[in-house]
């Protein structure tokens, strides 16, 4: 596959995590913080309900950027994100990105993960080797 140009969009990724996704992510990752898996605890600390793990959403951002290189896990060299809005289960997450710079076979992609107008991850910068 050819090296993309500055401004090219990366393939959009859409995922709707089901109600129990945070439990499965907790098991897979080892992060059992109760704000992600216990609705009563989440409400007691002032959240509307359980929230998605930020690192789960970062995992989706990594997936979207890796797909730029045909899914080759070696291609992703660096990923830096800022967590902003809280993510909720049972709402569609849309990951979008655009190529910010190209240096030889290395591209830097600016990525956003959002649920509707709520940008849960922004200023995400991925360095991908093609």
């Amino acid at each position, binding site marked *: 596959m050819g090296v993309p140009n500055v401004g090219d969009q990366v393939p959009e990724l859409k*995922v709707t995590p089901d109600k129990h*996704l945070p439990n*499965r*992510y907790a*098991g*897979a*990752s*080892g*992060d059992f913080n109760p704000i992600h898996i216990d609705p009563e605890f989440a409400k007691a*600390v002032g959240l509307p309900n359980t929230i998605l793990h*930020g*690192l*789960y959403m*970062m*995992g*989706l951002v*990594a*997936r979207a950027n*890796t797909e730029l290189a045909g*899914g*080759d*896990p*070696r291609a*992703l*060299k*660096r*990923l*830096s*994100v*800022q*967590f902003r809005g809280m993510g909720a289960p049972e709402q569609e997450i849309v990951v979008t990105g655009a190529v910010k710079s190209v240096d030889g076979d290395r591209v830097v992609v600016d990525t956003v993960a959002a649920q509707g107008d709520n940008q849960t991850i922004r200023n995400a910068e991925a360095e991908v080797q093609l």
Partner: protein
Amino acid sequence: MAIKTEAVGKEWPATTYEVGKEKIREYATVIGLDNPVHLDREAARAAGYRDVVAPPMFCVVYSFPALAPAVFDPEVDMNFAAMVHGGQEFEWDEPACSGDEITTTAKCLEISERDGKGFYVFESTSVNQNGDQVARGVWTNIVRGV
């Protein structure tokens, strides 16, 4: 109240994690990754890996155990009730494959205060059994109202 910064520069004891094929499958499945290099040994070897290869963000699985004692250290004195995970960065080098033994060390890079918020920044460095660096992480936690 002034923020405590004595822990800046502190390092915590290393943890070692052995990467397993089924753990990689479990993680890849949750993220929705269907590339067979994460699931099937033959496919991974055909693609040039020693064994089934972990997705890059699997680094949270092997590095998190090293971070836990750092963030819970009383010397760091972080108020969890007001803490959010503000930012995260990873850099990847050698891929992590099933059977690898990955050793991670954690270090406190920064504790600072800006606009009434405390910034607690930790670094994790992970190397494999050959001494090759696998991943480096920078974890930023933000505490409101310090």
